[in-house]
C-alpha cells in the first residue's frame, strides 16, 4: 500500500514536470526563446490557484483549520486552475514585452533575473503569501469525497487528464502552421522576417502559452501537496525542467514528457543512496549530504546530457510531407495593383555608414518594372548592403526608397515583404532543421492561417489554405526539377540546392519584385544556366528582378539593364553593352588599364 502511494505520487510529480517541460519546449524547442526563469510561471500559477481557492478568512473552514493567511477567495478548484493559467500567461506576456528587444544572452539573464524578482516579491509580500512560512491549507479538490488512501490515485487520474488534454492541444498546435512558423523562427528569425512573418508576435504568443502551461502545472502541484511556500520556487526548478526537456529531446513533446519521467526517477533514486552501505553512515552524520548529492547529480546530468546526448532520448523527427490530394492546378497569378508609371524600385540619395566606412554613399537609381537588372561591382562596393537596405534588414542613415511608388524607407523587413518585395541571401538562409517541403510551406502560408486560433481550430478555410500551399509547393518543386528533394532536411542540401530552395521559397510567395544576392555563386555552370532560365521565365510572367552577380557572362546574357556600384556609389548604368564599354567601369571593376 505504501509502495502504491509512493508510486502514484511519483507518477503525478513526473506528469507535473512533464507539463512544465512541454511548456518550456514550446518556448525554447519551438520558438527558440532561452528562458532561464521558467519557475516564475510555475510559482505564479501555484499561488494564484491557492489564493483563489483558499476559504475566505472568517469562514468556518478558515477557523477550523486555524489558518493564518489574510486573503482567500473561497472559489471552486476549477476556477483556481483558470486563474493559474491566466497568471502564468500574463506574467509571460509581461516578461516577453519587456525583454522582446533583447538578444539571446540578455534574454537568458533577464528571464533568470525576473524569476528572482518574482520570488523576492512573493517572499516579501507576506500579506498575500505568508512568505517563508507559507500556507498549509490549500484545498484538495474533492478531498472530502475520497478516502485518504485512494485520494492519491484519484489525483493521479485528475493530473493525467489535465496533462493529457494540454499535451494533445500543444501537439496539435505544434503541427499546425503556427508551430511550423515557430520552428522556422528558431532556425532563422531574420529569414522568416524577410518572408513577411510577424516573428515578434508569434514568439510572444509561444511565450504566453508556455507561461500559461507552467501556471496550470503550478496549480496541479500545489493542490496535490496542500502546502505552498516561496522556498518551493527556487531557480533549480527551472533547470530541472531544462534538464527534463534536454534529456528527452527538444522540439518534441513526447521527448519532453519522457525526459520528465527519467528526471523524476533519477532524482527520487537518490533517496536510496542513504541505504547504501558505507554511504549510510555519511548520510546519517551529515544532514547536508543527501540533498546536496541530489543536486550534484542533477548538475552532472545537465553537463553530461548537453555534452554527450545533444539530441536527447527522442530527437526531433523529420516530418514527412503528406501526400498532396489531386494534381496541382496552375496557380493563379496574384493580382498586382501598382501605380501605373512608378518604377518597380527607386533609390534616392541613399546612405549607410558602418563606423568609419561608407558602405552606401549617396546612391541613386531606379528599376524599371518588368526588367531583370544586374547589380555588379567589385568586392566591398556596397552591393549586399544595398540589398539589405532595400529589404529593411538594415536601416539607411538617410535617403529614400520607394517600392512601386510607395515609400518604404525604414520599414521593418516583414512590412516590406508584405508590400511585395522578396529577397534571397548571398549565403542562403534556410531553416536547416526543417525539410525542403516545410521550408516552402512556411514561405507560402498566408499570415491569417498562422495565428493561434487557426492553429487550434482548423476550419475548412484553413485546411483549404494548407492544401493550396501544398499544391503550390509541389508546383515549385516540379518547376525547379527537384521533386525528389521534398523530404530532405534543408540542412543537408548542397550549396547549389540551397540556392535553388531560396528561390523556390520566394516563388511560393511570388512577390512582384525579387532581389537575388548572387543566385549562381557556388552553383555549377549547367545549373546556373538553368537557374537563370527559370528567372527569365518568372520575369516573363511579370516579376521584376534585381540580381547581384559576379559571373559577367551571366549578367551580359540575361540582364536587360546593369547598375555598376563602386565605393558605395552608382558608377554607371545602362545596357550590358553600354556598361561594358564604359571606361570608368573597365578601370574600377573589370580591371583594365585603359591608357
Amino acid at each position: 500500500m505504501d509502495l502504491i502511494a509512493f508510486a502514484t505520487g511519483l507518477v503525478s510529480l513526473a506528469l507535473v514536470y512533464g507539463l512544465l517541460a512541454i511548456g518550456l519546449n514550446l518556448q525554447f524547442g519551438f520558438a527558440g526563446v532561452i528562458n532561464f526563469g521558467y519557475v516564475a510561471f510555475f510559482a505564479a500559477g501555484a499561488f494564484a490557484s491557492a489564493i483563489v481557492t483558499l476559504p475566505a478568512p472568517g469562514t468556518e473552514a478558515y477557523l477550523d483549520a486555524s489558518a493564518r493567511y489574510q486573503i482567500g477567495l473561497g472559489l471552486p478548484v476549477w476556477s483556481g486552475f483558470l486563474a493559474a493559467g491566466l497568471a502564468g500567461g500574463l506574467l509571460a506576456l509581461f516578461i516577453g514585452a519587456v525583454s522582446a528587444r533583447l538578444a539571446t544572452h540578455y534574454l537568458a539573464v533577464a528571464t533568470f533575473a525576473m524569476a528572482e524578482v518574482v520570488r523576492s516579491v512573493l517572499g516579501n509580500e507576506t500579506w498575500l503569501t505568508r512568505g517563508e512560512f507559507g500556507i498549509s491549507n490549500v484545498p484538495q479538490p474533492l478531498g472530502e469525497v475520497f478516502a485518504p488512501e485512494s485520494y492519491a490515485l484519484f489525483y493521479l487520474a485528475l493530473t493525467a487528464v489535465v496533462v493529457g488534454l494540454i499535451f494533445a492541444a500543444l501537439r496539435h498546435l505544434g503541427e499546425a502552421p503556427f508551430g511550423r512558423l515557430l520552428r522556422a523562427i528558431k532556425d532563422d528569425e531574420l529569414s522568416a522576417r524577410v518572408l513577411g512573418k510577424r516573428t515578434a508576435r508569434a514568439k510572444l504568443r509561444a511565450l504566453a502559452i508556455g507561461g500559461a502551461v507552467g501556471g496550470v502545472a503550478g496549480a496541479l502541484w500545489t493542490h496535490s501537496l496542500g502546502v505552498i511556500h516561496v522556498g518551493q520556487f527556487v531557480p533549480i526548478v527551472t533547470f530541472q525542467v531544462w534538464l527534463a526537456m534536454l534529456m528527452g529531446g527538444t522540439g518534441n513533446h513526447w521527448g519532453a514528457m519522457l525526459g520528465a519521467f527519467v528526471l523524476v526517477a533519477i532524482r527520487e533514486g537518490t533517496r536510496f543512496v542513504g541505504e547504501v552501505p558505507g554511504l549510510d553512515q555519511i548520510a546519517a552524520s551529515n544532514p547536508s549530504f543527501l540533498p546536496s548529492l541530489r543536486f550534484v547529480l542533477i548538475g552532472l546530468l545537465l553537463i553530461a546530457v548537453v555534452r554527450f546526448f545533444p539530441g536527447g532520448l527522442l530527437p526531433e523527427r523529420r516530418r514527412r510531407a503528406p501526400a498532396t490530394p489531386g494534381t496541382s492546378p496552375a496557380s493563379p497569378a496574384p493580382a498586382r495593383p501598382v501605380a501605373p508609371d512608378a518604377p518597380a524600385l527607386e533609390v534616392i540619395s541613399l546612405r549607410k555608414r558602418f563606423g568609419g566606412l561608407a558602405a552606401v554613399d549617396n546612391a541613386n537609381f531606379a528599376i524599371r518594372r518588368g526588367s531583370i537588372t544586374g547589380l555588379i561591382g567589385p568586392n566591398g562596393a556596397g552591393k549586399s548592403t544595398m540589398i539589405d537596405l532595400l529589404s529593411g534588414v538594415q536601416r539607411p542613415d538617410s535617403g529614400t526608397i520607394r517600392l512601386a511608388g510607395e515609400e518604404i524607407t525604414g520599414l521593418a523587413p516583414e512590412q516590406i515583404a508584405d508590400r511585395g518585395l522578396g529577397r534571397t541571401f548571398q549565403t542562403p538562409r534556410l531553416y536547416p532543421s526543417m525539410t525542403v517541403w516545410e521550408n516552402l510551406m512556411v514561405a507560402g502560408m498566408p499570415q491569417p492561417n498562422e495565428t493561434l486560433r487557426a492553429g487550434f481550430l482548423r476550419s475548412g478555410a484553413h485546411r483549404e489554405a494548407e492544401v493550396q500551399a501544398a499544391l503550390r509547393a509541389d508546383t515549385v518543386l516540379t518547376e525547379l526539377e527537384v521533386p525528389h528533394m521534398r523530404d530532405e532536411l534543408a540542412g543537408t542540401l548542397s550549396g547549389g540546392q540551397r540556392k535553388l530552395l531560396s528561390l523556390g521559397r520566394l516563388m511560393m510567395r511570388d512577390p512582384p519584385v525579387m532581389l537575388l544576392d548572387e543566385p549562381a555563386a557556388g552553383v555549377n555552370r549547367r545549373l546556373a544556366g538553368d537557374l537563370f532560365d527559370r528567372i527569365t521565365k518568372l520575369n516573363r510572367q511579370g516579376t521584376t528582378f534585381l540580381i547581384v552577380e559576379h559571373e559577367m557572362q551571366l549578367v551580359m546574357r540575361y540582364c536587360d539593364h546593369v547598375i555598376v556600384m563602386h565605393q558605395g556609389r552608382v558608377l554607371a548604368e545602362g545596357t550590358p553593352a553600354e556598361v561594358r564599354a564604359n571606361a570608368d567601369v573597365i578601370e574600377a571593376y573589370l580591371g583594365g588599364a585603359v591608357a
Partner: protein
Amino acid sequence: MIFVQTLVYGLALGGVIAVSAVGLTLAYGVTRFINFAFGEFLTLGAFFCLLLAQAGLGLAWAGLAAAVAVGAVGVLVERAFYDPLMSRGLLPLLVTSVGVAFVVQNLIRIFAGSNPVRFPLPLMRPIEVGGLFIPREQLIILGVALVTMLAVHLLLRFTMLGKKMRAVADDPMLARVAGISSRRVLDATWFVSAMIGALGGILLAITQITVAPQMGWHFLLVVFAAVLLGGIGSPYGAMIGGLLIGLAMELGATYVAANYSYAFAFIMLILVLILRPRGLMGGSG
C-alpha cells in the same frame, strides 16, 4: 548624515559588485558566453580564504593564496567543461555552466554544511569623521576593490598579456592569424577571471560577515545586473555598472524598501535595457 553613510555603504557594495563583474566580463570577452558558474568562484574564494585563515595564515595572505587557487580552478573548469563545447553554440555552454554551478555549490555544501559560518575578521573600530561613524571594513573593501580595478586596468593597457586578451576579445580569428596562441590567452584570461571572482567573494564575505555555500549563486544576479548594465564584455562598463548597482541597492534599501535591495538592482537594469538594449558601454543598436 544617513545619506553620506548610505553612500559609503553603497560605494563599498558597489566595489564588491564591480570587482566581481570585471571578472565575469573578462571571461566573456574571450569565450563569448555568460558563465553561470561564476558565482561559485566567489564562494570558493571565500571558503578557501576561511580555511587558510583558520589554519593560521594572516587574512591578507590567505586571501591572495585563495585567489590564486581559485584561478587554477577556473582554468580547469574552462578546459574540462567549456572548451569541448566551444563550436556548439550558446545554449550548451549556458546549460553546462549552470550544471557546473550546481555541482560545485553542492560539493561545498557536503563539506562545509548548509549553515553560514562567521568570517574571521578582526574587530575594528569605526573611523569618526565629523560626527559620522564609518566602519573600517567598508573602507578596506572599497580600497581593495579600487586597487583590483586599477590592476585590471594596468594589465589590459600596459602588459603584452592584457593586449593579447583584448586582441582575442576583439577578433579571435584575426588574433590567431596574427600568431597569438588563443589557447594560452584563454587559459590566462580564465585564470584572471576566476582569481578576481575569488577576490570579489572574499570582499563579499567581509560585507556579509559570514560565508555560506549559496553566497556566490545568490550574488550572481547582482553581478549579472552590473555586467549587463555596463555592456557585456566591457571591463570598464562592468566597473561603472557595479558601482551604480551598489549605490542603487543601498539607496533603495534605505529610502524605499529594505527587503527589496536585490529587486532594485534588476529594476534599474531593466530600465536601462529598455532604453539601451546593449548596456551603457555596449555601443548602439
